[in-house]
């Protein structure tokens, strides 16, 4: 569901996202010119609709009372359906801003986020501000507006910086749509696709980085392919910032291409482990090497995921 991007352009569009990201959504970005024909106009039209639905970035939309009232529902889903287990919440600093970095699983419906949100809010209380960055497309989908009340905001550097400067806990999934649609045989692999914006964000805002490792989400469907070639051919990367067009076997559709209508996730057991915080400057020096940090974080998370996978006796059942 969520993604993390760092755009370089300074211009900001009216809904709070940097102009280059907005350009990609409208199809006005580089490479979008000259795409004539009915199909091109249709896709640009859809892209325009999607962009108009992307909510204005406003951290104030998070509603603690709404979250509190909905925790029992989330508890039912997390405890009964996904048999969720979250370990190590005590590793998250009790107060102050913190960047939570997770591996991302489960396709467009990511049960890990729900299980973790419940655990976080129950543990720290709904009073502690907690935001999650999500792909623009997720926030513009009909019926998912409630996510904004849970603190889900569009993935943009501005939103990330604002949340951390407000002293909030912020959950990002650097692997984004690339990782979340990885095939099922790569389910126990942390793959951020070399995206390192989260490290620069943690360094710029000088906040601790806390890795959050989850297992089970990628067993909620039979994910077959990211469909990167298909996405490129259909120009989805330029129009919707989608670099993938996932193909999976999922309920109730059978063969599910794109997963735009969602699916019924299989009740796989979700286990999440929160690792100790990393103070980047303390561990890597005043002027740290981003690549070195990246390798370190990936190695830590992969080792934890391997350990969680070794605990798992059966797929889905856990």
């Amino acid at each position, binding site marked *: 569901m969520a993604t993390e991007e760092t755009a370089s352009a300074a211009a900001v569009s009216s809904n709070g996202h940097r102009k280059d990201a907005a350009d990609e959504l409208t199809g006005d970005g580089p490479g979008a010119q000259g795409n004539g024909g009915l199909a091109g106009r249709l896709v640009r039209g859809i892209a325009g609709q999607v962009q108009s639905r992307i909510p204005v970035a406003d951290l104030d939309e998070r509603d603690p009372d709404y979250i509190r009232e909905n925790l*029992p529902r989330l508890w039912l889903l997390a405890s*009964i359906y*996904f048999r*969720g287990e979250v370990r190590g919440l005590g590793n998250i600093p009790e107060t102050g801003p913190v960047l939570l970095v997770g591996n991302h699983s489960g396709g467009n419906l990511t049960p890990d986020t729900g299980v973790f949100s419940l655990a976080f809010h*129950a*543990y720290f209380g709904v009073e502690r501000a907690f935001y999650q960055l999500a792909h623009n497309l997720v926030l513009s989908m009909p019926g998912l507006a409630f996510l904004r009340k849970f603190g889900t905001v569009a993935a943009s550097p501005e939103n990330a910086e604002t949340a951390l400067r407000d002293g909030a806990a912020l959950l990002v999934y650097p692997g984004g749509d690339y990782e979340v649609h990885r095939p099922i045989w790569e389910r126990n692999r942390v793959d951020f696709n070399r995206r390192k914006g989260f490290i620069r964000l943690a360094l710029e805002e000088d906040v601790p980085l806390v890795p959050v490792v989850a297992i089970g989400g990628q067993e909620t469907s039979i994910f077959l392919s990211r469909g990167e070639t298909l996405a490129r051919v259909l120009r989805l990367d330029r129009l919707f910032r989608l670099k993938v067009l996932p193909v999976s076997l999922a309920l109730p559709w059978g063969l599910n291409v794109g997963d735009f209508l969602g699916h019924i996730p299989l009740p796989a057991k979700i286990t999440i482990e929160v690792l100790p915080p990393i103070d980047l400057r303390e561990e890597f020096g005043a002027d740290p090497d981003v690549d070195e940090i990246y390798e370190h974080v990936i190695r830590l998370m992969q080792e934890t995921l391997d350990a969680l996978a070794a605990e798992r006796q059966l797929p889905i059942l856990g």
Partner: protein
Amino acid sequence: MRVQAQIDVSAPQELVWEMITDPSRYLHFMAGLTRWEVVSKNPKGLGARYRTLMRVGSAEVGGLVEVVEWDEPGDLAWTSVTGLDQRGRWRLRARPHGRTHVEFRLSYGVAGSGLLGWVAERLAAPTVRGHLKRSLQQLKRQVEHDQLRALAVERRAKSRVA
């Protein structure tokens, strides 16, 4: 949703009261409890505040609670300030032959959570009830064990004097 459990302890009421009013001992005898942390100046008594968490299903639930009733050595009640709506009560009553009847009550819920909240409360009840029962069994074991140790120390002291 209200759940409760009770047990008879073979120890005087004052000893049981001492145990249930000592916040440092809660993590030792309370089943399912992952946190019972003093957050007020006074560690015990009326107005004392604790941050509590209990593992139920896939979450550690609880919040900040405050002692609202302190009737030594019989009743101790707390209510939630933040987090899950909850009200807890220890009720101790003296029984003949130096025994104590202990009752532990816990009401919990989330106002405004609707039908699914009602369902969640009921589905969580067996776990919460189990925690309460095991807590009382552990409380009984610890209080009786403490009493036996105290008696043994007393006996040894007497025999040394003799």
